[in-house]
């Protein structure tokens, strides 16, 4: 079945769970920035958890559905209208053949996910349907959606067509928080910061800058300084790294971050909090709180159990 892009929105990309296994060739993972939101959208459409969906940034797309489809929206709160009628997010919603699905302006947060039953059917590139805009890699030659694109979905057994009368509570998965406090693991060069800078990192808020993207969130806050300049050669990088360039203003890496980099690492955003990092928009504030590797791993595994419970519960409801 076919979905036609009428309006692309600000930056809408096809994303799945990412492209592991190619870091040695200079190829990063990309994938959904708010990974649990992608999984929940897929669960609501009876899809495998890593099916390909749309990641929408701040301003939504308008899509024309040529065939009947079940869709679900998760992530940041965004108005959803089908043929002008407001419809719920965080629930499976039916879009009839010929209908126009319109996503508005996000009220808060930065990234929403639109999954469709069957998943978007684009050819995988190096094993993944994720778009890496920075590396120009992935479906659509690594570019975001634009008006006129025609997207196909995989044809699968159709979901029950009875409308559902429930929606998920988004709060555990999208906390409405004026200031997000993110758990920060010690970075390799944290100890090299001046003592005052080490304190400022955890006592002061940082504001997300306009030129932030999926590569990284550029933060503005107190100027952080090293006691002695850190000389280093390029080393492996992963999403979540808090890098400190000579400007003294840190950058928190996202899913399209380079696989290697030569700036010191003062911290590492706990994996469990990367979804909340993904939902900070330019102008939003965030704070860091220290965390140990053990606590971060425990929190990540707790969240995984909660996600699996949720996915199982959704599947049971959809087949009931």
């Amino acid at each position, binding site marked *: 079945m076919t979905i036609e892009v009428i309006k692309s929105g600000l930056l809408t990309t096809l994303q799945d769970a990412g492209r*592991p*296994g*190619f*870091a*040695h*060739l*200079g*190829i990063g993972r990309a994938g959904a920035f708010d990974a649990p939101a992608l999984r929940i959208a897929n669960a609501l459409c009876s899809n495998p958890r890593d099916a390909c969906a749309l990641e929408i940034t701040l301003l939504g797309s308008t899509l024309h559905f040529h065939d009947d489809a079940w869709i679900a929206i998760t992530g940041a709160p965004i108005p959803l209208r089908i043929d002008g009628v407001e419809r719920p997010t965080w629930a499976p919603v039916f879009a009839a053949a010929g209908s126009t699905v319109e996503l508005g302006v996000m009220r808060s947060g930065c990234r929403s996910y639109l999954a469709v039953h069957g998943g978007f059917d684009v050819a995988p*590139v*190096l094993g993944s349907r994720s778009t890496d805009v920075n*590396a*120009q*890699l992935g479906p659509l030659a690594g570019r975001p959606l634009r008006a006129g694109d025609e997207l196909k979905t995989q044809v699968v057994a159709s979901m029950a067509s009875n409308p559902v009368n429930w929606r998920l509570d988004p709060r555990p998965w999208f906390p409405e928080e004026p200031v997000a406090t993110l758990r920060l*693991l*010690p*970075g*390799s060069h*944290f*100890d090299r910061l001046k003592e005052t800078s*080490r304190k400022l990192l955890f006592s002061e808020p940082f504001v997300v800058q306009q030129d932030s993207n999926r590569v990284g969130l550029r933060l503005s806050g107190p100027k952080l300084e090293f006691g002695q300049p850190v000389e*280093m*050669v*390029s*080393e*492996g990088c*992963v999403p*979540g*790294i808090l890098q400190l360039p000579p400007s003294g203003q840190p950058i928190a890496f996202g899913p399209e971050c*380079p*696989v*290697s980099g030569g700036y010191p*690492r003062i911290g*590492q955003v*706990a*994996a469990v909090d990367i979804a909340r990092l993904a939902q900070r928009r330019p102008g939003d504030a965030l704070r860091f709180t*220290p965390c140990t*590797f053990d606590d*971060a*791993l425990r929190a*990540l*595994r707790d969240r*995984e159990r909660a996600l699996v419970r949720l996915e199982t519960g959704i599947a049971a409801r959809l087949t009931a």
Partner: protein
Amino acid sequence: MKAERKPHHGAGAMADFTVETLAEDALLLRFGDGIDMATNARVHATAKVLRHANLSGISDIAPAYATLLVRFDPLAWDGDTVGETIIKTLDPGFRRDDEQKPSKRDVSRVVEIPVCYGDECGPDIDAVAEHAGLSREKVIARHAAAEYTVAMLGFAPGFPYLLGLDAALHVPRRATPRTRVPAGSVAIGGAQTGIYPRELPGGWHLIGRTPLALFDPARKPPCLLAPGDRVRFRAIDADEFAWFADRDT
């Protein structure tokens, strides 16, 4: 607050490294802090052993100059366990006999890369020649005479950072980076030489261009070069460049 660093000083040339926890799903094995051939060779030797060991749950083994990034599934593994498994795998005492013998595949391959030097393919060659106090021909001869090692790939998919540049050809980066460097450009930045896999911004001096595709996601493997490969450049003229370019499109 302190990053975990576990020194491991075992037997054998590869074994002397520290294990640094980067993230819940990533370790950094550190063999040194600078750019030198010997350290980088140990990184590649270690990467090779770990790849052959095919450890379950490990998704990425990515060499850099002096470090090796290892990524794993944090739901199945924790950093300590992965670190211990890696140390055991690398320790000759824990390895089976058949894994200790060097095999043919342990000898890194040599990849020859044809390069059209100078003129429109290498607009900065005269600037490099002037800096080096050499003629244009000598610059080409020296660049093509050396054997290089792919220290790492990064910056963009398939971009090789090559070690082994003749000291006479070391040139500081351009004061103003170009916004567009053509795909295939062979360039010098400081003590390194590299090849731009696609059109990219860049601050290195462009001395030539190869018609070969460094990166093609549809190809297996997608990159012409892998970490640890050895590289030689061969000077070609504009006609041969056109012949290669025709063949590959």
